[in-house]
C-alpha cells in the first residue's frame, strides 16, 4: 500500500510538471497521444506482469509482437490468404497462445529456466517473422479500413481507442488477479511455489497459463501495432518492447521475486514510464538521454522497493 501511494504521488507530480511544461494550445493533443501510448504499452505490461507475478520472466514479447503483426498482415492481405478479420485475428491470437504454451511446457515440464526459454524465443520468432515476410516490410495498405476503424481510428467519448481497449483488459485482469481463485494461485506460486504445491494447487498448469496469456497479449499488441502503423518491418520494428513491458510492470510494483503487483500499479507504472520521456522532451532534454531517464527511474524504483521491504522476510 505504501508503494502504491508513493507511485500515485510521483505520477501526480510528473503530470503537474507536464501541464506546466506543455504549451496550453498543445496540451490536449499531447494528452491524447500520451493516453494512446499508455493504453497501447499497458497491454504488454499486463502480460509481462502476469508472468512476473508467478515468479517467471518473458523476454520474447517484442519478437512475438513483430511475428504476430507480420503474420496478421500476411493473413489479411497476401494473395492466397486475404482472410476475413474474423478468421485472421483469432488465428493470430491462437498463434500467440501456442507460443506461450510452448514456453510454459518447456519451463514446467523440462525444468528449463524461464530466462533461457524466452531468450531463445526472442531470437527465433524474429527470425521466423523475417523469413515469412521475405525480410521485407509487410503492409495492409488501405485495405481492412473497417478493422482499423474498429480498433484504432477515432476516439470513444474523447478517449483514444487503445486506451479504451486497455481499460477493458485491465478490468478483466483486475478481476482475474485480485478476486478470482486463479489470481490467488498466481500470487501463491510467486510467493512460495512449494507452499502452493503442498496446498494441492496444480502449479504447472497456472504457470503455463501465465505464459499463454502473456504471449496472447503480445500477439494482440502486434495486431494493434499493425493497425496503427499500417505496416510492419520485421528487421527493425519492435525492438526492446519486452524491456518496456517489464519495466512498466516493475516500476508499477511487481517484484521480480514474484508474488507482488497490482493492476492499478502496473497502469501507473506504465504511465510514469511514458510521461517521463515526454516531460524531459518538453524540457528540451535531448532525446538521446531518454533511455538514461527511464533507466534511472527504474533503478530508483528498485532501490525504494528494497528499502520498503519488511526486514523479517529476507530468509
Amino acid at each position, binding site marked *: 500500500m505504501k508503494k502504491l501511494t508513493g507511485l500515485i504521488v510521483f505520477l501526480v507530480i510528473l503530470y503537474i510538471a507536464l501541464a506546466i511544461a506543455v504549451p496550453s494550445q498543445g496540451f490536449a493533443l499531447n494528452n491524447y497521444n500520451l493516453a494512446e501510448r499508455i493504453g497501447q504499452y499497458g497491454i504488454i505490461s499486463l502480460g509481462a506482469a502476469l508472468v512476473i507475478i508467478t515468479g517467471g520472466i518473458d523476454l520474447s514479447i517484442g519478437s512475438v509482437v513483430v511475428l504476430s503483426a507480420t503474420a496478421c498482415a500476411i493473413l489479411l492481405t497476401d494473395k492466397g490468404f486475404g482472410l476475413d478479420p474474423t478468421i485472421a485475428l483469432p488465428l493470430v491470437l491462437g498463434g500467440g497462445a501456442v507460443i506461450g504454451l510452448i514456453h510454459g511446457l518447456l519451463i514446467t515440464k523440462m525444468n528449463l529456466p524461464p530466462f533461457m526459454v524466452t531468450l531463445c524465443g526472442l531470437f527465433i520468432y524474429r527470425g521466423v517473422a523475417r523469413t515469412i515476410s521475405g525480410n521485407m516490410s509487410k503492409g495492409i495498405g488501405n485495405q481492412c479500413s473497417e478493422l482499423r476503424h474498429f480498433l484504432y481510428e477515432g476516439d470513444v467519448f474523447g478517449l483514444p481507442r487503445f486506451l479504451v481497449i486497455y481499460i477493458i483488459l485491465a478490468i478483466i485482469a483486475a*478481476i482475474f488477479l485480485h*478476486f*478470482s*481463485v*486463479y489470481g*490467488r*494461485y498466481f*500470487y*501463491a506460486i*510467486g*510467493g*512460495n511455489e*512449494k*507452499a*502452493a*504445491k*503442498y*496446498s*494441492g*494447487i*496444480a502449479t504447472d498448469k497456472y504457470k503455463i497459463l501465465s505464459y499463454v496469456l502473456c504471449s496472447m497479449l503480445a500477439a494482440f499488441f502486434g495486431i494493434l501495432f499493425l493497425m496503427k502503423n499500417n505496416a510492419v518491418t520485421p528487421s527493425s520494428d519492435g525492438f526492446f518492447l519486452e524491456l518496456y513491458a517489464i519495466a512498466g510492470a516493475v516500476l508499477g510494483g511487481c517484484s521480480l521475486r514474484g*508474488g*507482488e503487483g497490482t493492476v492499478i500499479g502496473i497502469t501507473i507504472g506504465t504511465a510514469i514510464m511514458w510521461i517521463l520521456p515526454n516531460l524531459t522532451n518538453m524540457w528540451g532534454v535531448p532525446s538521446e538521454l531518454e533511455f538514461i531517464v527511464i533507466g534511472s527511474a527504474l533503478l530508483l524504483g528498485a532501490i525504494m522497493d528494497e528499502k520498503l521491504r*519488511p526486514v*523479517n*522476510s529476507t530468509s
Partner: protein
Amino acid sequence: MAYLLEAKQICKSFPGLQALNNVDLKVNKGEILAVVGENGAGKSTLMKILGGVINPDSGEILLDGQTVNIASIPQAQKLGIALIHQELNLAENLDVAANIFLGQEPRRGGILRLIDNKIYDLANQIMQELGLNCSPHALVSELSVGQKQLVEIARALSFQFRILIMDEPTASLSLEESNRLFGIIKVLKEKDVTVLYISHRLKEIEEIADRVLVLRDGLNSGELQKSEIKHEAMVRLMVGRELKQFFQHAHRVQKTAELLLHVEALRYLENQKPITFDIRPGEIVGMSGLAGSGRTELAETIAGVRPMLTGEIILSSQYISINSTADAINAGIFLVPEDRRLHGLVLSASVKDNILLGSLNSIGYLGLIPLHGGDSLAKDMREKLAIKTPSVDQQVGYLSGGNQQKVVLAKWLCRKPRVLIFDEPTQGIDVGAKAEIYALMDELAKDGIGILMISSDLEEIIHVSDRVLVMHHSAIAGELVGQNISEESIMNLATGGTVAA
C-alpha cells in the same frame, strides 16, 4: 480388527542415503500414534510418503484394507489425509485467511470462480479455536514463527480429513499454545480422527499418544503400547545402545580461567536483550533452543554473515571488529552452516575445489591458481578426515551427507581455525558418520580450538557438550554445567521456564 491405514515394507532412498528400509506402520481409527526417532531416522520421509508429497521406491499402502496409490498431495487430500509439514510452507505475501484456504477457497460467481469473502469469517473461527490471535487479514510475513506454525495447523484443520499427520507441530510453539493444540487433538480423537504425531518432545508423547512407533536409521526399531510409553523406553529404542557408546563423552569442567572467545552484549535485532557468553580453549559449548529461538542468527552474526548492531567480540584478549565473513575468517572464526548444501558447499564443484575454496589466496600466485595447486593439501585433508569419495575430483553433490559435512569441515581446517561454530552438525547424517564427526570435534577441542555447537538434537547436546547454553526468544535463557545438563532442564529453559537448581 482391520487397520484404518497400513503401510507395508516401505522403502525410499535418496542419493547416498537409504532413508527408509522396509518400514511398516499400522494405525487404527481414532488412534493417536506417535512416531519418534532421532533426526534422520526417516520419520518425515515416511510421513511425506503417506501425505503424497513424495513417492516410495517400493512398498504398499492400504486404506480401509484396500490398496491405494497416493501419488500426489491432492490425491492424499481426496483420501482424507492431511499433512502438517515440519518446515513452514506458507505464501508469506498473502494474508492469513488466504493461506489457510489456499487450494480450497470457498467460491462464488460460477465460472469466474471468485473468492468468497466469507473466507475471513471461516478463518476467524478456526483461528479462535487454535488461539491464533491476529487478524485474518494480516500478512503472514508479519507474523511470529509460532503464529506461522499455527497458520500451518489451521490450514490442515480447514478441510475434512480422516487422518491428520503432524510433523513436529510444536517445534516453535509456546507451552500454552502447545497445550491448546493437545486439547484440539483430543477433540479430534473423540470424533474418530486418526492422528499421526511426530515430535522430539517425549514428554508430549507421554501425555497424548495411544501407541508409539520408533524408527531408527530408516528401520522399524520397535513399538510401545500405551502402558509402556515411558521416556527411557523411547530413548532406548531411538538411540540404541551402540550409539551411546560411540560418543559417550565426559563433561569436562574447564579449570583454566583463560578465555578464547568472549562475546559481550551482542545484539543482532533491535529491542533485543544483549547476549553475553564465552568459550574457553578446548571447550565444546552446546547451544540448545527451539527452532526460531535465534541460535542460527547468533551464529551468523558472530561469523559476519549478519550485521552486528551492538556488542563486542574479544578473541584471546584482543578486540576484533567483524563486519563481514572475511573479517571473521581472517580472525579464525569459522561457521559450519546449518544447510550445508545451500550455504556450506558448491554442490556442482569437486571435492578438491570445495576444500580449497577458503584457501585459494595462499595457493595462487598473482591471483592465478596453478594447475595442480593445492592437490596435495586436498588429498591430505581427505585422508585426515577419512572422506569417502572415489577421488578428490568427484562432484561434492554425489557424496553422502556425512562426507559432505566433512568436506565443509576440511575447508576450514586448511585455514587453522581458532573458533569453530557448528550449526546442526549432524542433521540428516547416518549414525556411523555422526560418531566420526563427534570424534573429530573432540580431537579439535583437544588441540585447543573452541567449539560452539548448535543442535536441536538433545541427545547430541547432552552427550557432546562440556557446557550448555540455552536460547529462548533471542536471548540466553540459561547455562547448564556438569550434572545439571539434562533433557528436562534444557527443555525447561528452551520453553521459557527456569531451572530448579
